[in-house]
């Protein structure tokens, strides 16, 4: 057992760093506080996020800024139907050494970075999309007989356009489940648009500075993992998860009607980890039910698969999650 004062100091340090991070990001990114926190949550949890929004909302800018302020390596992959797995993973090429020998050398693809932006991920074929799976899940890439570990922290931030479905390959359920959060990037408000225009159409260029190191990020990730979760909070998260399944315990009637498959256990893991991050964001030492509630929508919305009836009715998973959160009491006998 370590000293609680140390822990308190760690949390304070965490808050400071997050504060600095937010401030620096805020210099470039206008608004989108929830998306920024969501992405940060994913990164601090050591996971990946799926960003959904129309083009031009600053998704790439956000990811690039994050990488800059954290001093992390950043790559961007524009997914297209003809994109091959080797294009993102890398390939073995025959190379001539200085002494004239020919050797096979592995040329790393764009997945070899700390932050990978997989732009319009649903435009690539499932074969290419699945190439990303191993990297996302295992944080390593196998080419031939050689496995290449990806450098930590590793975070894939994929984007997809919700409007243009023509010629796209929707992500399979298994791949969707690997995303920690699915974040919806909203259209900026009028005030935010004013600020964006002001910043992007003037002479002044905004530069961000690095406020975190890679080590800071890793230690912060470690702190997140250490945040305790009381049983009642865990219990609540489990009950929420159960309620996402049609005819599951505590499932509201809307879920029974409109949901085909509920969230996998990865959903509850995501909720708890996100709850821990949120507790730290708020300077608390333990996760709370409110944190679980806050994490429920981004963690579960892409894990609940709607039934035909649900899709026909245009039911949004967020609505169903709202029903679930409203129906489950904080404590249970």
């Amino acid at each position, binding site marked *: *057992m370590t000293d609680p004062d140390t822990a308190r100091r760690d949390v304070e340090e965490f808050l400071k760093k997050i504060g600095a991070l937010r401030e620096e990001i805020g210099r470039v990114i206008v608004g989108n506080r929830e998306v920024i926190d969501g992405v940060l949550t994913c990164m601090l949890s050591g996971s990946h996020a799926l960003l959904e929004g129309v083009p031009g909302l600053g998704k790439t800018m956000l990811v690039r800024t994050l990488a800059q302020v954290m001093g992390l390596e950043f790559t961007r992959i524009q997914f297209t139907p003809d994109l091959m797995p080797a294009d993102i993973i890398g390939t073995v090429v025959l190379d001539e050494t200085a002494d004239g020998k020919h050797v096979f050398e592995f040329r790393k693809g764009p997945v070899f970075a700390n932050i990978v932006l997989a732009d319009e991920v649903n435009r690539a074929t499932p074969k290419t999309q699945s190439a990303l799976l191993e990297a996302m899940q295992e944080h390593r890439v196998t080419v031939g007989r050689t496995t290449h570990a990806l450098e930590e922290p590793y975070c894939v931030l994929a984007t997809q356009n919700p409007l243009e479905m023509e010629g796209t390959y929707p992500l399979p359920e298994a791949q969707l489940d690997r995303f920690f959060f699915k974040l919806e990037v909203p259209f900026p408000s009028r005030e935010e648009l004013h600020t964006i225009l002001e910043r992007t159409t003037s002479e002044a260029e905004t530069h961000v500075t690095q406020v975190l190191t890679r080590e800071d990020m890793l230690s912060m990730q470690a702190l997140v993992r*250490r*945040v305790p979760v009381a049983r009642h909070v865990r219990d609540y998260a489990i009950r929420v998860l159960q309620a996402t399944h049609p005819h599951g315990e505590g499932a509201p009637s809307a879920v029974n009607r409109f949901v085909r498959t509920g969230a996998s256990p990865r959903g509850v893991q995501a909720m708890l980890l996100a709850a821990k991050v949120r507790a730290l964001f708020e300077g608390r030492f333990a996760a*709370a039910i409110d944190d679980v509630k806050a994490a429920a929508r981004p963690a579960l919305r892409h894990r609940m698969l709607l039934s035909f009836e649900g899709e026909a009715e245009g039911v949004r998973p967020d609505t169903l999650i709202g029903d679930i959160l409203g129906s489950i009491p904080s404590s249970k006998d």
Partner: protein
Amino acid sequence: MRAFLRRFALWLPLPLGYSAAALALLKVTTASPGAQRAALGVGLALGALTLGMAVHALARRPARWAGSLALDEHHGLSDRITSALALLGRPESERTALSEAAIEDGLALVERLDPRRAVPVPIPREFAVSLLLGGLLLGVVWFEVRVTRLLPPPPSFEPLVMAADDLELFSDIAQRMTDKSDDPDSLAAIRRFNALVEDIAARRLERREAFERMSELEAELAKSADIDREARELGLEGLARELQRSGLAKTAAQALEEKRLADAAKALRELADKLKKKGQAPSKSELERLRGAVERASRQSGERLAAVEQRRRELNDEKQSLLKRKSQPGQADKAEAKLGENQRKLERLERDQQRAERAARQLSDLDRQLAEAAKDLAKDTQQGAEDINRSADELDKVEKREMSEKEKRELLERLREMKELLRQQGQAGQERMKQMRRFGQRARGGGGGGDEGEQSGKPGSKSGRGLGQSTRIEQVQVPRIVQVPGGSAGGGDPKSGGDKGNEPGSGVQAGSTHDDHLAGDATTPKGETHDVSAAAVDTGQGSASAEVIHGAAERGFVGKAYRDVYVDYQTVAEQSLEHDQIPPGYRFYVRRYFQLIRPRE
């Protein structure tokens, strides 16, 4: 407590709703007491169930951390208290630095907590339904269902009404009898009779009640039945017969035979005095005869009883032998006839025996004294005289008893008269009452006699017994014949009676048929009448009876002369009623007539 209230609020509508519905149903329908009890039982059961459910909720263990979560929620602490408590529950070895920090953080907040505000006990919203139903129940309770029930009309009190004149008559009788009597039993009976008359006068009695009381009094007075009197007379006759054998006791025997008990007692006392006086002492043979007569007289009741008993035994023996003969062939018919005769004789003897026993019982004291006298006369004349004196005293007692019984009989008679009067009045309802009133008016010579006579004569034309029957009656044949016009029920004063009243039978026809229920000859359609006459002797002193009657009609029934005439006439009338053949229905009217015209003070 919240759970208790909530559960209570959830279940409360059930008993309330049921109570409102059941009460409404019970109010609008007529449920049997059993159904009412059942409804009440169900209501109570539902109430108990509600309370039970609420208590069950109270007893149930609340959800873990429910209290701390409520505190966190109220204070906006994001589960810091709950998490601290939960982490505190972990073993120390499992606690991390962050866990410890979380616990300390939670504990640091404890002082700021306000559980009362954090976990208030709100009134559950569900109570709104109960409130509504409670209001409904109150409404039902206050709601009055008017049920029209036809109740039987209250029993109307119709007092028995008797004419003031009649009341006065019976009151006078009671007063007269009270003045005359000194026997406590008689006085008590007279008081009861008087109270009855007073109650009728004050209209305190209904017809049924009055008759009930009259019957009670009648039954009481009838206790001293004629059989007692007969038995006593029989005993006294036997006594007189025996005493007559002695010349000394002849006077007393004569008085006894004529039932002059006071004279008999007086004669016995004189005899005792005679025996006491030494100078006038009777001869020995006379004394012996007297002693023998007295002795036989003292024994005669017992001997008669013994004779009757002997005869009964003989007849019983005869009966037994006849019964045996009856069973023999050929003798049955004869024996049967003799048995019937035997039975009749036995029954007669039964009555004789009863009478003899009663006589012996009533005269037992007298017999004993006479026996004493007979015994003492044989030894000491003086002592015997004393015994005879005591026998005279006993005879006085018997006389007194007889007087008392006489008074009671008279009272009984008057009571029966009153009963008959009331019975006659009520026999045919109001019409009969009117008739009786008219009769009363006319009997007293009231005005309008002619008119009344004409009206009441009409029904009489059919049956021949109407009150206004135009029968001319010469009531009393006196030196100067007085014709009383206006029908049999008293023609009344010619002056006040009106023209029609002065014309005998005008407008009235005799009945043409005969009522079988009436005794006597049928009324002759030709209008032939039987004259009734009574002879009287004119002494030449005072007014003639006719004049007295005329005067009484004018001045009222007062005065000594009228009283004398009334007594004469009533005596004749009573004798006629006693001896002549008079239709029973008419006896009442004759007596009633004399009641109404009786002399007044």
